[in-house]
């Protein structure tokens, strides 16, 4: 038998963890054992898992710092909502509309990433952190005064107010300034969210373990040596950053289409930092760690509702525990072995 490489094994364990997570909650859902508040968290969990993976590509794999990933998420969220709502009557099959919304959300976020990346990634230093921080704030403020409506003639845009959209009667306002996107049809599903997680994992893991991913990591480890080996630094920094922005955009579309309203404020600096916390706690460059951290820390506030006033205190304690566990090599080893065992078992069951 051909020897399976370490990286391939680790990739398959990650797919296994996601599938087990899906099966577990799907069974809980269909047997009605899941509380309402928790079942409402399933798609947000997947969204933040995807966000953590996307940011880890920039922070962990490429070694740059982004403080505005929520900005890319909001680009994807609002463009996704516009696409899904505008095509409501044209494409009646909602999964296809969801796919279109996610793809267009990803493409527009990638465009935003390209516009930021081209000038900033040329520079060495912490410029990317500063510029993405500004981008996150700017995009939030732009969306706060953006009005988009749709009628039989097509889309109408305005930066002033809803009235200046000049729509014919019967037109619908899709994005209404600071009130955000309204009347969204909830077409995101848990299964779709899981599929997106798997696709993103597939893309990032295969990229990391290929020629391009090797180059991205080499540039992170030693830029001068990478140059002396003839690597095109700009190309690979852009590749990681734009791909990450696109994935964040896809996550944004998935997220927004799970709610009936979404406000621009949702994607602010705090959200960017929250995702960064997932990445740091899960281990910079450690995809599995950041997925687990994102999932746990997204449901935690819900689960802690019963602690009432002590909620944030417990949250802080859990944060510290996660940090200790994920950064302790012995604990990591143990987690890895447990994970491998679970995966092996599930593989046996399947086979």
């Amino acid at each position: 038998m051909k020897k399976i490489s370490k990286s391939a094994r680790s990739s398959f364990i990650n797919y296994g963890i996601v599938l087990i997570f899906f099966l577990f909650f799907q069974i809980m859902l269909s047997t009605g054992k899941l509380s309402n508040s928790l079942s409402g968290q399933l798609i947000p969990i997947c969204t933040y898992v995807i966000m953590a993976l996307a940011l880890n590509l920039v922070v962990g794999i490429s070694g740059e710092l982004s403080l505005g990933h929520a900005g890319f998420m909001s680009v994807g969220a609002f463009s996704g909502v516009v696409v899904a709502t505008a095509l409501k009557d044209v494409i009646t099959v909602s999964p296809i509309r969801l796919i279109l919304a996610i793809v267009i959300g990803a493409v527009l976020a990638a465009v935003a990433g390209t516009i930021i990346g081209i000038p900033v990634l040329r520079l060495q230093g912490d410029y990317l952190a500063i510029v993405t921080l500004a981008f996150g704030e700017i995009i939030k403020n732009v969306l706060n005064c953006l009005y988009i409506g749709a009628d039989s003639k097509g889309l109408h845009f305005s930066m002033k107010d809803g009235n200046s959209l000049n729509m014919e009667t019967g037109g619908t306002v899709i994005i209404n300034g600071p009130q955000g996107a309204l009347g969204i049809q909830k077409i995101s599903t848990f299964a779709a969210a899981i599929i997106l997680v798997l696709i993103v994992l597939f893309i990032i893991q295969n990229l990391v373990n290929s020629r391009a991913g090797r180059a991205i990591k080499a540039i992170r480890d030693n830029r001068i040596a990478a140059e002396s080996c003839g690597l095109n630094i700009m190309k690979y920094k852009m590749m990681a950053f734009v791909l990450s922005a696109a994935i964040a955009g896809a996550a944004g579309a998935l997220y927004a289409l799970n709610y009936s309203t979404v406000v621009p404020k949702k994607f602010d600096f705090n959200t960017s930092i929250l995702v960064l916390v997932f990445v740091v706690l899960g281990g910079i460059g450690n995809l599995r760690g950041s997925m687990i951290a994102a999932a746990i820390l997204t449901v935690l506030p819900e689960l802690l509702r019963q602690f009432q006033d002590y909620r944030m205190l417990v949250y802080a304690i859990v944060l510290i525990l996660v940090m200790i566990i994920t950064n302790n090599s012995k604990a990591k080893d143990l987690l890895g072995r447990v994970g491998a065992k679970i995966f092996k078992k599930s593989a046996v069951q399947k086979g």
Partner: protein
Amino acid sequence: MSEKDNRPILEVSHLGIDFGGLTAVDDFNISLAKTEIAGLIGPNGAGKTTIFNLLTKVYQPSRGKIVLDDKDTNGMNTIQVNRAGIARTFQNIRLFDKLTVEDNVKIGLHNHTEYNMWSGIFRLPKYWNEEKRSHEKALELLSIFDMQDLADATAGSLPYGAQRRLEIVRALATEPKVLLLDEPAAGMNPSETAELMENIRKIRDKFQIAVLLIEHDMNLVMGICEGIAVLNFGKIIAKGTPSQIQNNPQVIEAYLGKKKEAK
């Protein structure tokens, strides 16, 4: 032999650089034959590493001309110079510490591996073929130093000597015409150094390339270099064969003699 083979592969004339008021290198000239092993020696701070940084465009020269294989490298950056055929190692080792030994070599092979991001993500046939080829090539290159068993180790975890050897393998993987080695024997014990000497010769014979090396170990320099240039305060003070250099009073005064005193 044809006339081309006698033409130098690297020709450097009047090369110089100033850092503010300090002239670190001035009027540096050297000519390397196609398969020559040459040495660059001189006291600490003489400007040896700076010359490597100029040749590889880590610093842009203030003046002078660098011609590689009949091509003027004026206006090229570090990346383009490597693609044109100059590879180097670093005095203060610069490996990709978190990558495996094999991956370090594969980075050297990067521009000779042909598949794009999408073939990598979707694992198209091109990915499998090219990865297999570069895996085999990497092991073959590592075997020069008998390092193929270390392929899966993390580069940063290797002992000092092995790290230096890996840097040479990585540089070779870029398929250079000229190989620059900055103190390749630093930190090695005498038997390792002797082995390195043999291997540098082997590399030159096998790959038919020119080697320019900076080294403080005089046994190594005098043992394998066909031509030697001596640098002091950024200027060449002597050039010649090992025996000429060893008997040059100016060199003894500036460098060799001092070294004996230190011992």
